[in-house]
């Protein structure tokens, strides 16, 4: 055993210090440009904007997880090999479209389909489509990566397809699936401010207003909460991963924040 003081020292340098430094830096920017004062003066608007922002992130994230995991799972079922390769090709191309492009596409394409290209719904659709691909891809790869021997043993012992999926395949693919979900969450949190551009609301309003007025206070009043939100979501997802992934397959704690 390594003595306690040494481990604490090590942890301090590896985890706590970098995190504390980042948060400290962000807070310093926040207060020094007068963002805090601006937010305090516009409390009502702040809560409205952050509410919209959370709605954008949470709804598109939930939808992306639901659809992504389901689709990725279906793609691994027997007889789906051909469709799976087609879907993977689409998903891969889709992911290479930049965030701003996705927002612009929603603005341009949705009216063709008879929907409004402006407002929160198009923004949600754009975020969802942008975030679903890593989850599909990782779910497919994760389940596909479960060893054939494990599946053969389970089948031969008399587990049903359903039991194999829920007790063996999904739990063993979970670290890979969680990796996809964390990538998606980063994409969504990063793209959500752009929703403002097509009238989707959210903290992007202050960010873009600040940029337009060359007012660092307004800009950071929007940007800092977005950054903190990104960190919080990643931290929570990391925590979730540690809790739900079996210790038998947890490979390493690469995650600095947890």
């Amino acid at each position, binding site marked *: 055993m390594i003595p306690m003081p040494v481990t604490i020292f090590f942890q301090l340098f590896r985890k706590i210090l970098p995190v504390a430094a980042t948060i400290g830096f962000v807070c310093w920017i926040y207060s020094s440009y007068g963002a805090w004062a601006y937010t305090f003066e516009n409390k009502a608007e702040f809560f409205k904007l952050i509410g919209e922002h959370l709605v954008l992130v949470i709804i598109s994230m939930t939808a992306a997880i639901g659809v992504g995991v389901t689709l990725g799972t279906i793609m691994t079922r027997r007889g789906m090999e051909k469709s799976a390769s087609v879907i993977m090709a689409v998903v891969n191309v889709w992911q290479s479209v930049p965030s701003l492009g996705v927002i612009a596409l929603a603005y341009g394409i949705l009216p063709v389909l008879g929907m409004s290209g402006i407002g929160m719904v198009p923004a949600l659709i754009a975020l969802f489509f942008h975030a679903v691909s890593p989850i599909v891809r990782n779910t497919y790869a994760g389940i596909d990566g479960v*060893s054939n*021997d*494990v*599946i*053969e*043993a*389970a*089948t*031969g*012992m*008399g*587990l*049903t397809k359903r*039991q194999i999926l829920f*007790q*063996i395949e999904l*739990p*063993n693919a*979970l670290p890979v699936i969680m990796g996809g979900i964390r990538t998606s969450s980063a994409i969504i949190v990063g793209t959500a401010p752009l929703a403002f551009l097509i009238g989707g609301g959210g903290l992007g309003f202050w960010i873009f207003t600040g940029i337009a007025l060359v007012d660092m206070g307004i800009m950071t009043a929007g940007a800092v909460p977005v950054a903190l939100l990104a960190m919080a979501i990643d931290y929570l997802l990391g925590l979730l991963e540690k809790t739900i992934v*079996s*210790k*038998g*397959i947890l490979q390493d704690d690469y995650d600095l924040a947890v």
Partner: protein
Amino acid sequence: MGTMLSLQDVTKIYPGAGNLKAVDELSFDLQEGEICTVVGPSGCGKTTAMKMINRLISITSGKIYIDGENVARLNTIELRRKIGYVIQNIGLFPNMTIGENIAIIPKLLKWNKGRIEEKVLSLLEIVNLPPDMYRDRYPRELSGGQQQRIGVARAMAGDPPIMLMDEPFGAIDPINREHLQNEFLKIQEKVKKTIIFVTHDIDEAIKMGDKICLLKDGHLVQFASPEEMLVNPKNDFVSEFVGGDRTLKRLNLFTVKKAMQKNPPVVLKTETVGAALNRSKELGQECLIAIDKEGGFAGILNCKDTSFSPDVQVKDVMDPVRAWLPSHSSLKDGLSEIFTHDYGFLVVVDDARKVLGWLRTDDIKNTLKG
């Protein structure tokens, strides 16, 4: 003891190129508690034959009965839960602890918690992995040999009457494999399962099997006990497959106890050398086995040596104990030991080192002659 497993004209044809018969009208019966090793060159259909029993592969024609029930009539899932299944690459579930791996079938069979708990503990004891140390660990923390022991324990957890084992020790290094084989035979003595054991290794087939089923190109070539197959190989293919040293392989099938001669020429170690020499002349033996009062092995007196004074006691001039044979060791080990030491015979002792008999090369010859 009834027929537990019966295959009747079981045939598997894979559609496609020439409708090749992977298994062709395979029939045999297996009694309860027997191990049948299925062996043959690769591509002979041994794994296919085995997988038709738990319907991982469908039967083209023919019937398989387990304990009188036609497996085709049973629900696949229920059927498989009644059959223990062990594969070469083990396939433990990485997300579950050792205990959970073993408990999976009992849980699906809806046993109550206490019974599952008890079963897990007793199985870990049986496969020699102390429950306290292993039940809460994960498969990745165990060595290959330990993992396969868990694989065997998991397969036995639902108390299946039948077990299918597909080259279970094939991926284990030779030293551990031998160890696991011996351990498994010990377990089998206790649990008496009916087992189909697929292997490509004829030595393993001979060692593990009560019956050997030798396949070639999907045909049954010979179904016999190991002894029968080694003594009377049905044709050239069989004798070639079992190897030119098949007589030597038979040595593995006998214990020293079976081949040894009882009533060896003994002498009490407290007797005088003169008396001993007379005794050896009477018996026509060049050596006498010196024993103590309790019959324990004390040494060997070489009576050809004429330099001994006839008045001293045997124990003062005898050769000290250098080697002996435990009565349960195999005849192969016995022969090897005899060749290692230069008496031309070895003393066979029981666990308390009391002399039971002696084993000479002629005794081995006679045993092999039958």
